[in-house]
């Protein structure tokens, strides 16, 4: 944290405004009050104790009284934490309910558009098809966003379902590559995959891990400018299986690196290059990898490319 950040942390009233809470509900302010009470009371007890040392009852009563005040303040702090936790839970629940509710009209929309595009209702002209495609693309984007939001709300509620089984990471990566080949070809990107021979199987959740690989590979392909190449490497490193995907894309600016795994964060140069994307993919990938007991990271240079990797323990 730099000096400016540290000073901002000290400004309790602005910190409390950030949470939308009044001072007497704000944990930071209440902690400050408690600290002051502890210091003040310690000094008072010391001063009084010094003068009335022959009357221990008075000192004991004083300590009791001050402890009672501290207890009350601590209770208020706990309550305010509870309220914050409750607000966060309600937010996640709200997102979850809204996402579910949005899904039905969205899938109706999607299927009706596909129905129109299929020519089953009547012939479609080239021009009409062009506009139907725009409708469909936007519908798909909304559907993806809603799906991502649902996953995020599950992660935040600690309800991400995990079903662990023995799988071959090699096969899983192969499957994802096959599924994304059309997208890669359409983006003029070549996918090259290198895998160490005889990799051991891992015990993990197949679908969640697939989501991670899809997200990483999708980013790699998406942020390559013009003709490009994406390289996937799979190998065993100590007691871990190591996956990495390397692209020669737009890269991540130095200042943006610390935010890259944050929810809804999208790098400035990425926004210039590509408007699509929810800014949730890497947050989801990180949450899942950590939940599966692994580690995720990246290295990147703006204009040169990025490498994203994760490690998963072989035995769990």
């Amino acid at each position, binding site marked *: 944290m730099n000096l400016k950040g540290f000073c901002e942390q000290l400004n309790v009233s602005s910190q409390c405004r950030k949470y939308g809470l009044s001072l007497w509900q704000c944990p930071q302010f209440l902690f400050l009050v408690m600290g002051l009470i502890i210091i003040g009371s310690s000094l008072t007890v010391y001063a009084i104790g010094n003068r009335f040392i022959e009357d221990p009852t008075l000192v004991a009563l004083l300590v009791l009284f001050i402890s009672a005040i501290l207890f009350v303040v601590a209770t208020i702090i706990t309550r305010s934490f509870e309220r914050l936790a409750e607000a966060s839970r309600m937010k996640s629940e709200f997102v979850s309910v809204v996402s*579910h509710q949005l*899904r039905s009209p969205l899938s109706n929309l999607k*299927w009706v558009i596909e129905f129109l595009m299929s020519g*089953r209702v009547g012939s479609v002209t080239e021009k009409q098809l062009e506009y139907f495609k725009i409708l469909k693309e936007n519908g798909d984007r909304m559907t993806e966003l809603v799906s991502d939001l649902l996953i995020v709300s599950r992660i935040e509620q600690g309800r991400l379902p995990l079903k662990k089984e023995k799988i071959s990471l090699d096969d899983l990566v192969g499957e994802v590559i096959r599924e994304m080949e059309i997208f890669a070809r359409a983006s003029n990107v070549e996918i090259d995959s290198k895998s160490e021979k005889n990799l051991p199987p891992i015990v993990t959740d197949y679908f969640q891990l697939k989501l991670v690989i899809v997200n990483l590979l999708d980013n790699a392909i998406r942020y390559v400018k013009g003709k490009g190449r994406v390289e996937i490497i799979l190998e065993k490193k100590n007691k871990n299986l190591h996956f990495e995907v390397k692209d020669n894309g737009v890269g991540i600016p130095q200042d943006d690196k610390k935010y890259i795994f944050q929810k809804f964060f999208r790098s400035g140069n990425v926004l210039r290059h590509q408007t699509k994307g929810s800014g949730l993919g890497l947050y989801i990938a990180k949450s899942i990898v950590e939940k599966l007991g692994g580690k995720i990271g990246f290295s990147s240079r703006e204009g040169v490319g990025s490498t994203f990797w994760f490690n998963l323990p072989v035995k769990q």
Partner: protein
Amino acid sequence: MKTILFVEDESVLQKTFGEVLKQEGYEVISALDGQIGLRLAKEKKPDLILLDLILPKIHGFDVLKKLKEDKETQEIPVIVLTNLEGIGDVDKALELGATTYLVKAQYTLEEVVEKIKKALGK
């Protein structure tokens, strides 16, 4: 001609998807809630049932359970076609005897038609 019972409360889907299935050469019976779905399954003995889960009157899971408990309907393959994707929903449906579980948002219209054709062995 093979018959499909389509249990779905969204009339938009009944209209569009029903039309697609008719064009594919199937006879489509519509049910807008779970109760009607159960009744029609017994009466018409369709070759396949497409079942939504969030349904008025009787929930899709209960419809599925009753279909599989009833000797008259237990042999009919059931494809769950829904937007519900909660924890354990897929496992629950498969345990209850559903043939396939399809989340609407994840499949295109044509992909679902393919799955139906496959389930009916065409």
